């Protein structure tokens, strides 16, 4: 197996790699220091990107009553 590309590493970190590919990747990682190092780098990048994106978010407020509850929402809803 040649070195693992970054897309596969991100899919692995995202928990989105199909089980067969995941098993093959983990077997490769056990033997390949370069890919382990790349995985560490990509993990750090992924965390950093999540933190950057997470720093621009609206204040979390509880969801208002479901729109179907017209009586709770008031007559100006469909403005």
């Amino acid at each position, binding site marked *: 197996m040649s070195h693992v590309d970054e*897309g596969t590493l991100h899919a692995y970190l*995202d928990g*989105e790699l199909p089980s067969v590919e995941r098993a093959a990747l983990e077997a490769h990682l056990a033997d390949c220091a370069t890919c382990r190092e790349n995985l560490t780098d990509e993990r750090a*990048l992924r965390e950093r990107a999540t933190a*950057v*994106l997470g720093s621009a978010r*609206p204040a979390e407020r509880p969801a*208002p009553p*479901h729109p*179907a509850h017209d009586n709770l929402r008031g007559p100006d809803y469909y403005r």
Partner: protein
Amino acid sequence: MPDDIAEVYRNTYPALVRFLYRKVWDAERAEDLAQEAFARALVHRPENTRGWLFVVAANMARDEARRAAREKRHLTLLKSEPDTVHSSPEEDIDAETRTKRVRAALDELTPRDREALLLWDAGMSYDEIAAQTGLARGAIGTTLARARRRLVEAYDAGLERGQHVARG
């Protein structure tokens, strides 16, 4: 009210607001649009409510951006005085500056990379992102890797520029 929409509403509302916020950059407007999307879902009763909501929300945000751009053009024509600068507490300035930098960094991404990243952040799976963006499922990892790298690089470059401006 069908149970599934109520369930989706409870589970998806904050993620949909967050997704919209990063497109319209106005928290109140993002909430209004999210509510409107859910109201439309009640009328249309789509099969895949969650996926449908994000498609509708993305379209509404696009319309909103076009409308805002039109209004801005009109205002520029009408107004000759510069925008009023409101004073805010230090933490608000920081939050505002940070948001501006994230927004500028997101603008550096291609529309497709940005969409994939925002959908992932909203809690969508690779299958859902593929269905939404038309990308092959196998390409999502590469797309997200590129989007994350570009976001971080652009954000850091913005920070550096900000420091230069502050020093200069």
